[in-house]
């Protein structure tokens, strides 16, 4: 088994701790079938370096694994990674998790390069058509309300440092709620990400999105099949519950004929 990136430097006050869903991502991307698919999609010496973007990186465990195991996953090491998260603390954590994992796993060079972690809502700052591989482990738990997005000011380190203990507790709970609360059917944030996929993915682009049973994966996949020129398939799954997969990861990509 390929090693899980070290996240011992991460404080889980406001950041999601790697869990079953994170590990399903690691196992899926490094599975024989997915790595074969990705290596064929981005053949070394024929295709330019892929840009791998994770949206909502949290601790950075998934993106760091993808960077550090790029040889196993893509059959090449010249991979660029970029992460986004609405929580600035998660961006700082991800940068460290990724650079540490690359250092630990890719000696000597060539090494994959983590180019940056950006505080952002989903992929809103990314240039249209620039992302080759998009990874998303969403806040997928159905909840009555969807927490609002934080503002730029709420991520200012000076603001949180000046907080009282109780204000900090409320603030931490709010940021943690952003890591799991998905609103109606747990799909409100995922729906916004799905809407952004055709715009942000490159012509060779592919997205991996995790869904839980309550998200009704069959219906989501049916909807994506209705997009003109797109395909979707289950790439990984785990945790049988009453005969149903509890978590699935779907692969969404442009049909080859359009490349």
């Amino acid at each position, binding site marked *: 088994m390929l090693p899980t990136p070290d996240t011992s430097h991460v404080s889980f006050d406001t950041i999601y701790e790697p869990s079953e869903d994170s590990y399903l991502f690691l196992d899926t991307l490094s599975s024989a079938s997915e790595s074969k698919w990705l290596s064929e999609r981005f053949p070394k010496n024929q295709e330019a*370096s892929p840009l791998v973007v994770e949206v909502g990186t949290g601790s950075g465990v998934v993106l760091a694994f993808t960077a550090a195991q790029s040889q196993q996953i893509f059959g090449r090491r010249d991979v660029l990674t970029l992460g986004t998260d609405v929580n*600035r603390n998660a961006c700082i954590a991800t940068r460290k998790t990724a650079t540490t994992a690359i250092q630990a796993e890719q000696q000597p060079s060539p090494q994959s*390069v983590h180019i*940056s972690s950006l505080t952002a809502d989903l992929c*809103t*700052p990314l*240039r*249209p058509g620039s992302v080759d591989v998009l990874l998303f482990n969403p806040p997928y738990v159905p909840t009555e309300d969807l927490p609002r997005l934080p503002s*730029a000011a709420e991520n200012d380190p000076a603001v949180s440092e000046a907080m009282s203990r109780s204000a900090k507790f409320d603030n931490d709970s709010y940021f943690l709620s952003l890591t799991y609360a998905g609103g109606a059917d747990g799909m409100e944030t995922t729906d916004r990400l799905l809407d952004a996929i055709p715009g942000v993915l490159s012509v060779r682009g592919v997205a991996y999105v995790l869904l839980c049973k309550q998200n009704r994966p069959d219906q989501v996949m049916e909807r994506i099949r209705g997009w003109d020129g797109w395909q979707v398939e289950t790439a990984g799954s785990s945790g049988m519950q009453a005969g149903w997969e509890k978590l699935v990861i779907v692969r969404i990509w442009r049909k080859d004929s359009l490349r």
Partner: protein
Amino acid sequence: MKVITANFVTCAVKECKTSPASFPLHFNDAELEQQELDFQPEFIRNVLPRIDWEALRTISNELGFPTLPDSKPEGEALDNEQTLKDLHRLLLETHVTEGKLTCGNCGHSYMIKEGIANFLLPSHLGEEYHLFLNNIIPHALFTQIASQIDTPGLGTGF
């Protein structure tokens, strides 16, 4: 953030995406740091096809680097180790630790602190703006808040 990041980002405001003026974002007051990384010629060769050369020339000038050639190196120029080393240094070894990225279309600036750029929008520019405006904040209060924020473009419609 490494300088190469600027090749992949644009303004987070939806309306700016279609404007050519929103790419590249412009660096202001940038503080730079060099972090050594093993020189990997093959990597630079494989990354180059992804680079918008005109945008990189603009960025390179804004950051005070020597002017890049008029056109992207290709063919034999890719065997020139010095060219590749210069690009390696600019794209992968140079980090922007502090400063701003500004959109040439709407004028909004994104702050970079300790190497992390913040692309979250103030509520009057983001998706929640209209919801905020129409449903949550009474008009009088909103006007009061708006008058305290000094940002171009906010005044329209009030």
